[in-house]
């Protein structure tokens, strides 16, 4: 974060398109948590897996879904194997598996040969890296999760990888537990039906077992487990249209400061941040991107149920959370905003939508409160204590995919040869209606 020069001119530089692109609309591209590969969901009923090293197609996952694949998510913390969950308009969720030993470098041996390739999984190196056993190269269809009544819109793995959340036009959210019993068994843990419209997106908190959902009913809701029972702990109203997408802030995120004087601000900010936890970003048909913050509980030390050991029949009020609107980002979009991506590495936030525009925003400390007019672009950082911050759009890329709408953006670790040596650079991945997927560097 500190490596960026405050006065640098920022722009998005196109590194490459993926090749070959999907020939039909692409909905979402999910970067793998550790490997330099991405999974692009397409209306052609398949998932295209591309290399972030050379941007070429590695494999196509097909044969599992009868309609558009709308969404996918990689299970975290799996060693030696990649596990992908896919959600489709055919109302089902597919689970796919593949051994990691094969083809990590993008199917191009020279990439691994020049030492610029991918670090092989320690467990995978010995096991048949030269063998090329056909069975190991394939995506294995593991199981189909059946339960939703209509199109599945979003899937998300909990930070531990134990739980999978799925949501649908049927207004419900399902939480499944991956029993990890070697037999691909999943158990339904909860079905939540409080939303009054299609549930468009589900997103797990980065460290806690807390789920956020966004809906056609214009609300965002938060869900937690309380004594073996999953329930709604907050319903956030504010958006004036369908809420399309959500992304959580990284746990360690700190806004950018301007110099030494900001050390105190940073410390103050971290203290407050530790109390309220990671914030949530949302985007909507109302063309805005908003930031939400949980109000810290008055007394964090108190046991949640007063230690009486007598659970109330009613949901204890202790589990309810208050979420406040912290900021409306500078209004940069002219049509629906379909995606937000909050970088866990840099704290930068990207948005994209039907206007074909990609916007990158940066959050900075406001060092001199007097310098910020009351009606500044963003709405400031709320009324609570703590240092004020403001959001600035640092990149506006019009027509990023020509005339096409952009359905998704995501940040990923840069893995191509052009990256700077020893630096932890990031790329932005955008996915569009014409099936194209573009990889951008910020520079």
């Amino acid at each position, binding site marked *: 974060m500190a490596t960026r020069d405050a006065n640098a001119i920022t722009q998005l530089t196109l590194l490459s398109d993926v090749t070959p692109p999907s020939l039909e609309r692409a909905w979402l591209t999910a970067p793998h948590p550790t490997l330099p590969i991405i999974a692009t969901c397409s209306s052609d009923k398949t998932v295209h897996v591309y290399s972030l090293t050379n941007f070429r197609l590695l494999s196509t996952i097909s044969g599992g879904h009868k309609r558009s694949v709308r969404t996918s998510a990689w299970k975290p913390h799996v060693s030696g194997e990649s596990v992908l969950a896919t959600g489709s308009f055919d109302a089902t969720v597919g689970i796919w598996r593949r051994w990691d030993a094969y083809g990590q470098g993008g199917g191009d041996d020279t990439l691994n040969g020049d030492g610029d390739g991918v670090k092989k999984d320690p467990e995978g190196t010995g096991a048949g890296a030269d063998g090329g056993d056909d069975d190991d190269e394939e995506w294995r269809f593991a199981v189909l999760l059946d339960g939703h009544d*209509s*199109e599945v819109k979003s899937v998300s793995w909990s930070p531990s990888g134990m739980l999978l959340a799925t949501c649908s036009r049927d207004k419900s959210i399902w939480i499944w537990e991956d029993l990890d019993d070697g037999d691909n068994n999943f158990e339904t843990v909860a079905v939540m039906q409080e939303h009054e419209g299609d549930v468009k997106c589900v997103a797990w908190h980065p460290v806690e077992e807390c789920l956020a959902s966004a809906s056609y009913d214009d609300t965002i809701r938060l869900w937690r487990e309380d004594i073996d029972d999953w329930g709604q702990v907050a319903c956030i109203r504010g958006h004036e249209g369908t809420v399309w997408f959500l992304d959580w802030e990284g746990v360690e995120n700190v806004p950018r400061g301007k110099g030494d004087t900001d050390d105190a601000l940073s410390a103050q900010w971290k203290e407050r941040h530790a109390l309220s936890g990671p914030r949530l970003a949302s985007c909507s*048909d109302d063309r805005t991107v908003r930031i939400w913050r949980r109000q810290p509980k008055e007394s964090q030390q108190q046991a949640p149920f007063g230690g009486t050991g007598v659970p109330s029949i009613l949901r204890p009020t202790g589990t309810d959370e208050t979420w406040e609107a912290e900021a409306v980002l500078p209004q940069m979009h002219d*049509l629906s905003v379909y995606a937000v991506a909050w970088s866990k590495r840099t704290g930068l936030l990207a948005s994209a939508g039907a206007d074909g525009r990609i916007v990158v925003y940066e959050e900075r400390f406001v060092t001199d409160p007097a310098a910020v007019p009351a009606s500044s672009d963003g709405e400031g950082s709320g009324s609570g204590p703590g240092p004020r911050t403001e959001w600035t759009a640092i990149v506006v890329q019009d027509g990023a995919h020509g005339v096409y709408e952009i359905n998704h953006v995501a940040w990923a670790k840069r893995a191509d040869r052009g990256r700077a040596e020893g630096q932890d650079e990031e790329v932005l991945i955008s996915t569009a209606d014409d099936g194209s997927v573009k990889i951008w560097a910020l520079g």
Partner: protein
Amino acid sequence: MTTEIQNSNPTILSDADLPTRLRPAEAAKSRAYGSGLFASTLSFPGDSVDPASQYLSAESESEGDDLLEEPIDEQEIYDLISTISDPEHPISLGALAVVSLPDILIKPTLTNVPDSPLRTVTVLITPTITHCSLATVIGLGVRVRLEQSLPPRFRMDVRIKEGTHSTADEVNKQLADKERVAAALENGTLMGVIAKMLETCQ
């Protein structure tokens, strides 16, 4: 769709009262013949030349020439959608005045980006009766027709005209939802109805 007809006695406009640009089109055609430049007519053997498809092919052949004049106007949008059939009558949306020329608007999508090629087509639909549950289907038919006919730089904004329908907001929200529209296009039953409505186009 097989239930009883909701509006059994709709008002029907006569063909002569519908907006048309027949005369200029005829003139253009005869001029083309006169000068021997009938290539454009040859490439469209059908007797009715669809201006939008003509534009589409012209665009792909000229490799995205940005200097192209903007040949798509409100009348041409009207021509594309007025021939769609009502789902419960064998009558066109134009004749039923469900769509009308003054309720079609084309404007730049990004007002602050002057050189952006994006255009928003707004079509206001007037259902024949205020509680017509087929309003969504009609709107979807119009949206599908436009999406299939217009180049991708056009954004569709198909809505129920204010004050003409009891659940307009609900219908409008559905019609504006890209994901729902995309899913509807994969629904065989619904697409059967839409295909039947669009049979009378071209």
